């Protein structure tokens, strides 16, 4: 973007940055809340139409997006504090609606998974259809450790991540030689092998899965207990809500740090042109394998929280179609754009749930929406942004 247009935008800026930030964040949270609590079909459809309208506005008037981004850049401190506050007080506004909280938790976990995949698909353009499998490895590792060895949740968390990362590195090894469709098939095959093993081995419980994963506890507070605070009472799901929100925060932070680091730059270089990246002295093989490892690491965290939250896991939670769903979230949201990916995960998690009226046809409906989306807005809700180099 040239400097003339930048100054043009700045001169047009009518609202102070702080106000824009506050309006965007509170507006977004309110919209999400309305969508979570909406039960009548007309209401759901009206909210979807409103979101569609907002995106149409962004599509037609790109300056609005620039303006909002600039405001967030200017008032970074305020934006972070406000966002954290909103996340912290959010459950209080849901009025003890456990279903809404459940949806929120699942959306948060899928956001983490989508961000994990984004390191490969978005940053480095490596196809990976096995995120569901590494998610499953994480979930099964922690569940087995907790059930058979009595490990606490907090101890299984790093253990699951390490096991899954080892698998991630193993999966990354074929990527040294194969690429594109061939690599895609390697990851698909890996996902199916893992799913079939979980389904057939006796010590993973076979198709029945693992039951009775004990609830975690923190400082004597069991996560089965409701939270009581200042006379308010939050349902027990709120525990897991805060846990998954913290994990998503961690994922966002690592995504940002990695993007700004040499690693992120190397991934982007591989995406742009693998051969050129190699010529620049980037160790392509290592960075590709690293992308698999990072993906598995984060996915295992999400898997562990999921296992302890639902307290029951079975192979069907980690099929090939789960991996495809995660991939769709990244593409619909916008590759290599953290906000877009999270939005994609939220939309694709909540849409099928909110369309229960169409009961039998909702999967059909969602698939049609995905296809239309890929045709009409191929770069995703929020396309990847130009990299900023150096200071401003």
């Amino acid at each position, binding site marked *: 973007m040239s400097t003339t247009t930048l100054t043009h935008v700045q001169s047009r800026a009518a609202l102070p940055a702080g106000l824009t930030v506050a309006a965007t964040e509170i507006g977004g949270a309110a919209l999400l809340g309305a969508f979570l609590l909406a039960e009548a079909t007309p209401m759901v459809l009206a909210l979807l139409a409103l979101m569609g309208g907002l995106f149409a506005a962004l599509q037609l008037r790109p300056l609005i997006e620039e303006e909002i981004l600039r405001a967030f850049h200017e008032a970074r401190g305020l934006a972070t504090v406000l966002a954290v506050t909103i996340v912290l007080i959010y459950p209080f506004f849901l009025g003890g609606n456990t279903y809404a909280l459940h949806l929120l938790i699942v959306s948060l976990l899928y956001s983490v998974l989508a961000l994990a995949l984004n390191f490969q*698909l978005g940053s480095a*353009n490596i*196809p990976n259809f096995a995120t569901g499998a590494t998610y499953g490895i994480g979930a099964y590792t922690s569940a087995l450790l907790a059930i058979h060895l009595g490990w606490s949740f907090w101890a299984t968390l790093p253990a699951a991540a390490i096991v899954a990362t080892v698998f991630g590195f193993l999966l990354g*090894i*074929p990527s040294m*030689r*194969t*690429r*594109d*469709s*061939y690599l*895609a*098939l*390697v990851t*698909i*095959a*890996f996902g*199916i*092998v893992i799913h*079939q*093993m979980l*389904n*057939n081995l006796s010590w993973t419980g076979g198709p029945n899965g693992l039951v009775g994963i004990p609830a975690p506890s923190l400082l004597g507070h069991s996560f089965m207990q409701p939270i009581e605070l200042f006379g308010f009472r939050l349902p027990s799901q709120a525990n897991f809500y805060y846990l998954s929100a913290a994990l998503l925060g961690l994922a966002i932070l690592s995504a940002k740090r990695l993007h700004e680091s040499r690693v992120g730059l190397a991934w982007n270089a591989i995406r742009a042109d693998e*051969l050129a990246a190699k010529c620049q002295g980037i160790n392509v093989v290592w960075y590709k394998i690293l992308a698999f490892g990072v993906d598995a690491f984060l996915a295992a965290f999400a898997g562990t929280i999921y296992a302890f939250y639902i307290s029951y896991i079975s192979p069907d939670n980690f099929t*090939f*179609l789960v991996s*495809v769903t995660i*991939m*769709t979230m990244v*593409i619909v949201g916008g590759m290599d754009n953290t906000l877009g990916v999270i939005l994609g995960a939220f939309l694709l998690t909540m849409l099928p749930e909110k369309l229960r009226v169409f009961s*039998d*046809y909702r*999967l*059909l409906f969602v*698939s*049609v929406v*995905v*296809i239309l989306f*890929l*045709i009409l807005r*191929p770069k995703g809700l929020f396309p990847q942004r130009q990299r900023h180099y150096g200071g401003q």
Partner: protein
Amino acid sequence: MESLILQHLLNWLVLGSIYTLVAIGFSLLFGLLNVIHFSHGDVSMIAPFAALGSLQVLFGLAGSSVGILPILAALAIAVLVTGLVGIGADRLVISRFRNSPAMMALVATVALGTVVRELIRGFYPQGSNPKSFPAIVQGFAEFGGLRLPALPVLIVVSTVAIVVLMYLLMQKSPIGMRIRAVAEDGATARLMGITPARIFAFTFFLASAVGALGALFFASYAGVVRFDFGVQLGLIGFSAAVIGGLGSMGGAILGALAIAGIETIVQANMADGASYRLVFAFALVILMLCIRPSGLLGKPVFEKV
């Protein structure tokens, strides 16, 4: 003992034939468009349902005089319908991703596969239940003292015939030459007076119709069909095409025979082989791709600067 080996051998050839028919479609389309038509398995699985539906209508019309004619007619209708659905899938969805990154087309066709499955489940009468599918032929065939069940023999023989026909069509006929020309260089083919759109439509019809035969044989051999059988069949067909080398018909056949072979061996030699056959089949896929990254007969791609 001998009959057991014979049985396994026959089973291997039948599975190999079915996978070949599905894999050829993947290979054909990839060779032409460089696109992976991931819904190919699901589109092919339309055929058994179309056959069942038209069989019911035909029996309704002709009374229940069970002859070979209504069965053949139903099979022909099924193959035709599936071929047309293939063209429709291209027109409606896949053609819009000609110039997009490969991953977009892949995800779009995965979603398209779900659409096809869900349409069968939701709109075919009692579509979510498994349906029993009749054997196309019954009884036994005699070959110089060797008594073999007729259906497997029919499947293997017709697959060989189809493969030979496909080879002749691709290598010796004018339309095959046009397909190869478009695959080689679309722009130049255009200059030579070839309409790529028509070639694409024909190729999609061909791939889907051959896949349809594979799905019909699969349903007939298994004796049952369900709306989601296409996922696994598609995955295996795709794997066969890839380990053989995408774009190569001979490779697709080799890949199909390799996967069918490992499945048969595992099933025959392991106590609970039936449940582990997919593990071994896909482990083989990973291993093959590690050893030969562009498939058995695929040409290795060298990048030029």
